[in-house]
């Protein structure tokens, strides 16, 4: 099976796909290149996606995850259930059961869940396209969805995501209804009501971090956290003040990850963390990032305490040593915007 996955990955690379697949741990794969990172649970129950990427990348995301589930859960493989190695299944090696294993396995299951970690379009843009498969989808010669399987996926998010996406301005919702979550939760955490691919999946709400609707998703057997935009290795944390984000909430979110994560040995390995953007992380990486956020927050808070204006704070370069890692002078989230968000987030409300 591992060889099949490997061959698939090689083939994907050879055909120049823009989506890169990184096998992470247990059932979990990280998809890179669709906007925000996507965490995918792939297995016998089908596909669960944490975030859906941008709408433009949906066809490639769909193609990638369907090929992946076919390779992982529906490809012929050698019979490993032989003699003493298969004591509890006397019929396993008899045809047609053998053929179902080595020649004609059952079809893979489609996308069953999409969990949105926030309302951002690079995380929710693919909701509609990925949650409803066309009836005659054929991937690698296999028809999706299989007979008897509902073609639509459940889209789950914190209720603040739905609230903000459906908020109307002049009679029009902020985001088209096809992209809205179909199910929401409102507490501090939420558990999928059944195992998916053999493990429990738990959502945690981190209020007032990147926004007021952030969720991180914990795969309890695979020991992988999909952190959404609470964590990024490529930029300063995006504090969306207009949508309820705060610097303290961002810091709390990072500490929340560290509370759950257990390193395998010496602050490394063990629980792996898929960030909203950037590379796969573990405890040591999250701690380094958390420290950076805490240090900048403390500097800006001290400046505010001294009565410095926003311009004076910017001039003091509170992010100086981290700009080479996370800073930007152009694009959607510049260093200036980050410092301003921290400043406003910490300034006394008038």
């Amino acid at each position, binding site marked *: 099976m591992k060889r099949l996955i490997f061959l698939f990955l090689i083939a994907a690379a050879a055909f120049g796909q823009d989506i*890169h697949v*990184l096998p992470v741990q247990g059932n979990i794969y*990280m998809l*890179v290149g669709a906007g925000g990172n996507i965490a995918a649970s792939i297995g016998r129950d089908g596909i669960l996606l944490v975030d859906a990427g941008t709408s433009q990348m949906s066809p490639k995301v769909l193609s990638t995850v369907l090929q992946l589930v076919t390779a992982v859960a529906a490809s012929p493989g050698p019979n490993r259930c032989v003699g003493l190695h298969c004591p509890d299944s006397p019929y396993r090696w008899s045809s047609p059961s053998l053929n179902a294993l080595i020649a004609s396995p059952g079809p893979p299951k489609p996308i069953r869940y999409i969990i949105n970690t926030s309302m951002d379009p690079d995380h929710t843009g693919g909701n509609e396209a990925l949650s409803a498969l066309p009836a005659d989808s054929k991937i690698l010669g296999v028809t999706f969805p299989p007979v008897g399987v509902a073609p639509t996926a459940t889209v789950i998010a914190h209720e603040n995501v739905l609230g903000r996406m459906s908020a109307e301005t002049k009679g029009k919702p902020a985001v088209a209804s096809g992209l809205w979550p179909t199910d929401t939760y409102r507490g501090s955490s939420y558990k999928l009501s059944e195992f998916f691919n053999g493990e429990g999946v738990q959502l945690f709400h981190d209020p007032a971090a990147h926004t007021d609707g952030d969720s991180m998703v914990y795969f309890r057997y695979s020991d992988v956290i999909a952190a959404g935009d609470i964590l990024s290795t490529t930029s300063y944390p995006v504090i969306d003040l207009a949508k309820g984000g705060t610097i303290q909430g961002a810091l709390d979110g990072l*500490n929340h990850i*560290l509370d759950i994560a257990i*390193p395998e*040995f*010496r*602050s*490394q*390995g063990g629980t*792996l963390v898929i960030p909203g953007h*950037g*590379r*796969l*992380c*573990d*405890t*040591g*990486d*999250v*701690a*380094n990032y*958390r*420290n950076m956020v*805490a*240090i900048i927050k*403390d*500097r800006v808070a*001290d400046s505010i305490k001294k009565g410095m204006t926003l311009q004076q704070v910017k001039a*003091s370069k*509170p992010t*100086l*040593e*981290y*700009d*080479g*890692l996370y800073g930007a002078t152009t694009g959607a989230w510049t260093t200036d915007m980050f410092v301003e968000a921290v400043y406003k987030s910490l300034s006394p409300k008038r």
Partner: protein
Amino acid sequence: MRFLPPLLLLAACVPAFPQGAPVLELTDFSGVWAERVHEDSYERSGGPPLGDYQGIPLNDAGRRKADSHDHSEWSLPEFQCRPHSAPYQWRALGSVRFWNEVDPIGRDLRAIHVEYLRSLDRVIYMDGRPHPPEYAPYSWSGFSTGKWVGNTLVVTTDHIKASYLRRNGASFSDKATMQEFIDRHGDYLTITMILTDPVWLEEPFIQTTNYALDTHTALTYYPCTVSEENISTAVPHFLPGTTEHLKDAAGWIPPIAARGGAESTYPDYREKLKQAAKP
């Protein structure tokens, strides 16, 4: 027979390896090596003075990073068991063990493992595999590949987690890459490290470290347990301009030298120090 016929001469030069030529391992580093601690010894036992960055080509960003360092950061639960990273490790206390991972059938050298007393197993892959993509995880040891250049093992490392370059806060970022040249001279080992960091160094940091073969030592179990005593919820650091301990280093070396920087790593910097010392 004074002269071999040309064909026979050629045959004599061709080794009898019907399955193909063997992979030559030019130098065997296997064994335990003890550190010599004669280079910069003052900073390798008790640790360097706080605020002393001499010899490190820090840029302004790297200097700010170092200045904000509060040694209490070691109290953070995530940092208490943080190991030395690959770039720092050679100068750490404790022995190092090299061992070869060899394919038992093909006899080809898959990897050279380097184990340190207080750190993690470090693997130097020798089988020609590529380095991982940028989005793959980083580690304290980094991802290393090696190749032979003459008798020298040349190691290229990336994917290293950001960590300290000196135990007083002088650091390298996770954008750093490292090249090492490992040479064996009989019972002595010399490691020449070139660390390049576009974020916190203005020039590559170059350092050599020596070890001696030690046939009577074994690496011992070195556990680590996180202590939860007196843990603050804050991240310890100094705000800019409040780092009192910067004066400590200045008490025994010229203050401008303590600030590090590329120019302080060159011999002609002595002249600048002499000029600065003049009344």
